[in-house]
């Protein structure tokens, strides 16, 4: 059995002068859950469009199950997507939707029906199977969205922000479903703006921005890059320029990110924080808030992209 279920190599895609993907590539193993992180405009949508076959004129290659994805249409029977939008028919019920979306794949009607019933149990919608979806809550719709993505038993599934806009309880339930997918040998590419979710379920994380892969590794590997240092986040009234000027004089800490009215620093020794504050006061920089915390994925993300994932 091949180790890499999907291998994306050197993908470059331009829209005129704009480079959406720049020599981008990664691979995913069977049963692995990869978190693909990037701020808006990072190139995630372009990557998804390439995988779906709706984006042409790019360089690079995509190998799925050891074959060129674009040369064998049948390979798509083993790949699924859960789009960010509730991409199903609201006026139909859950069973009708599962039967329709599953029918687009090469799967027998009998098997499809059995699978639909099983999936509705998994996503805890079996008692609402024949109710129009327009009556469903946001969380129920999200769960159905996942069930539709899994109806044809794919070996790889791409989950594009599957927890957006739902309550904590529904989120927990969805994250549990995703964890189970990995345990059952299904590979998952998971994109989200909730870094805590990635920390919780992903075995490997890829951070991308402006079409480039910036860093890749396990959560521990990524945090190690930032180092076992304390992270100090300062908010106040200052410009990016004034902080960049000040940055030259900060020797006792490493600047992770500077934004308008915000600076994040990594301190080897927190004893130096008063020295830094003194420097701020000397330069008449008003500080309104200061937080000390341990490094996490957000720190890593800030370090590599220079901005928050929600920017």
């Amino acid at each position, binding site marked *: 059995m091949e180790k890499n279920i999907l291998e994306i190599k050197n993908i470059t895609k331009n829209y005129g002068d704009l480079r959406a993907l720049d020599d981008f590539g990664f691979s995913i193993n069977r049963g692995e859950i990869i978190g693909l992180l990037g701020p808006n405009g990072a190139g995630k949508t372009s990557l998804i469009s390439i995988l779906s076959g709706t984006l042409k004129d790019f360089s690079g290659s995509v190998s799925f199950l050891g074959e060129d994805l674009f040369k064998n249409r049948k390979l798509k*029977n083993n790949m699924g997507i859960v789009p960010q*939008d*509730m*991409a199903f028919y609201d006026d139909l019920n859950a069973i009708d939707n599962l039967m329709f979306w599953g029918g687009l794949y090469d799967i027998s009607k009998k098997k499809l029906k059995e699978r639909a019933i099983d999936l509705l149990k998994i996503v805890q919608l079996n008692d609402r199977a024949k109710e*129009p979806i327009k009556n469903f809550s946001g969380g129920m719709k999200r769960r159905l969205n996942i069930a539709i993505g899994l109806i044809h038993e794919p070996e790889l599934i791409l989950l594009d922000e599957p927890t957006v806009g739902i309550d904590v309880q529904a989120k927990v339930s969805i994250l549990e479903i995703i964890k189970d997918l990995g345990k059952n040998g299904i590979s998952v590419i998971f994109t989200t703006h909730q870094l805590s979710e990635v920390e919780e379920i992903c075995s490997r994380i890829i951070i991308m921005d402006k079409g480039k892969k910036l860093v890749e590794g396990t959560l521990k590997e990524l945090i190690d890059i930032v180092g076992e240092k304390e992270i100090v986040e300062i908010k106040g009234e200052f410009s990016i320029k004034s902080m960049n000027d000040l940055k030259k004089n900060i020797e006792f800490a490493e600047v992770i990110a500077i934004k308008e009215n915000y600076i994040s620093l990594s301190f080897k020794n927190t004893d130096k924080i008063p020295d830094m504050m003194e420097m701020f006061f000397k330069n008449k920089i008003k500080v309104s808030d200061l937080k000390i915390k341990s490094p996490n994925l957000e720190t890593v993300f800030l370090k590599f992209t220079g901005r928050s994932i929600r920017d």
Partner: protein
Amino acid sequence: MKRIILILKNDIKRRLKSPLSILILLIIPVMMTGIIGTVFSPSENKMPKIRVLITDNDKELGAKVFIEAFKSPQVDMFQLELVEENKGRELISNNRGSALIIIPSGFSKNLLKKNKTNLLLIKNPSEQFMPNIVEEFSKTLSILLSGAIQVFEIDETLINSIKGTNMDYKSLITMLPMLKKNKTNAEKFKKLMTYLNPPLLEIKKEITGKKTNNTGINIFSYILPGISIMFLLFIIEIFIRDILSEREDGKLQRMMFAPLRACEYITARILSGWIMGILTYLIIVLIGKLIFNIDWGNYFFLFILIIITCFWIASFFALLNAFFKNRNQAGAFVAPIIMIFSAFGGSIIQTNQLPEAVRWVSALTLNHWFIIGANKIRSNIFPTTPILILLISGIILYIIASKALNKRIII
């Protein structure tokens, strides 16, 4: 093919579960046809009676004969009312009568003396045909009355002799010769009756061919095709607009993740609009037959015209949707496009009533060719030209639409 049928079946299922928008678009043309048709329909049985007002200033036999003629059951088209002159004039000016006839005093006397006399006819200027009917009928009566008096030599002595009797005017007329005891007149009358009854010239009625339910011109058959084609454009556009909505809400991306080809998707979408359009129009045909008793003509020809028309519309909107960025843009453009088609194509006003300078535009619209086709089919003529024009232009639209949509899906 399996996936095309699947999308098609799914569309039908969805529309059947939420049929409201389509039902509304089906009901509106039927209602509009009903309203317009009822207003302008020349229904034979319900022709309104002509309201005739008469002021009788004479009150003698001549006036009575004249008035009674309007009441005759054989004529049965007048609703008569005897009024004072002032009241009569007021009713005419208030548009509550078609004509006012004023019989002057001494009318009968003058007639019997064989002096010239006048009847005054006041016509309602707000009405077009009805006052003219009253005028023509009055003229005919005047000729008959003048003739009868002169033939029978009826004079005042005779009239005076029967004054005070309760005889109605018909009995009086019948008995006039006997009452006069004038042999010559009695003979003249007999002779006249011999000539008149039985008449030498008689109009015989003959009805040839099979009896149909079509009682003359059915105005609905002229209105419904024009109005319904306008709404068919709206209905098919709703189905085709799925191309935009599915692209916007992620369904298209999800479908393209499956082993579905872009060309299969495009075909399914056009086919869906096409088939749903055919089904919808067949319902309109049925409603037209059941409610308005429309004789559509040859149903096979009509079916061909509907198939080709719906194909044309589906391809046309598929092409437009290849250029629209989103649903909002489509919503903003589609209604004016359909209204232009309908205004110039004869759905709203007849094309021959358009200013001559813009009349050529109608030939560029679907509505024009469909209405011509439907009219020909009603006369059981196969509409070769409209069908060929719609078929060829429809195929061209389909080819361009498929290529343009493919470019929008696969960037």
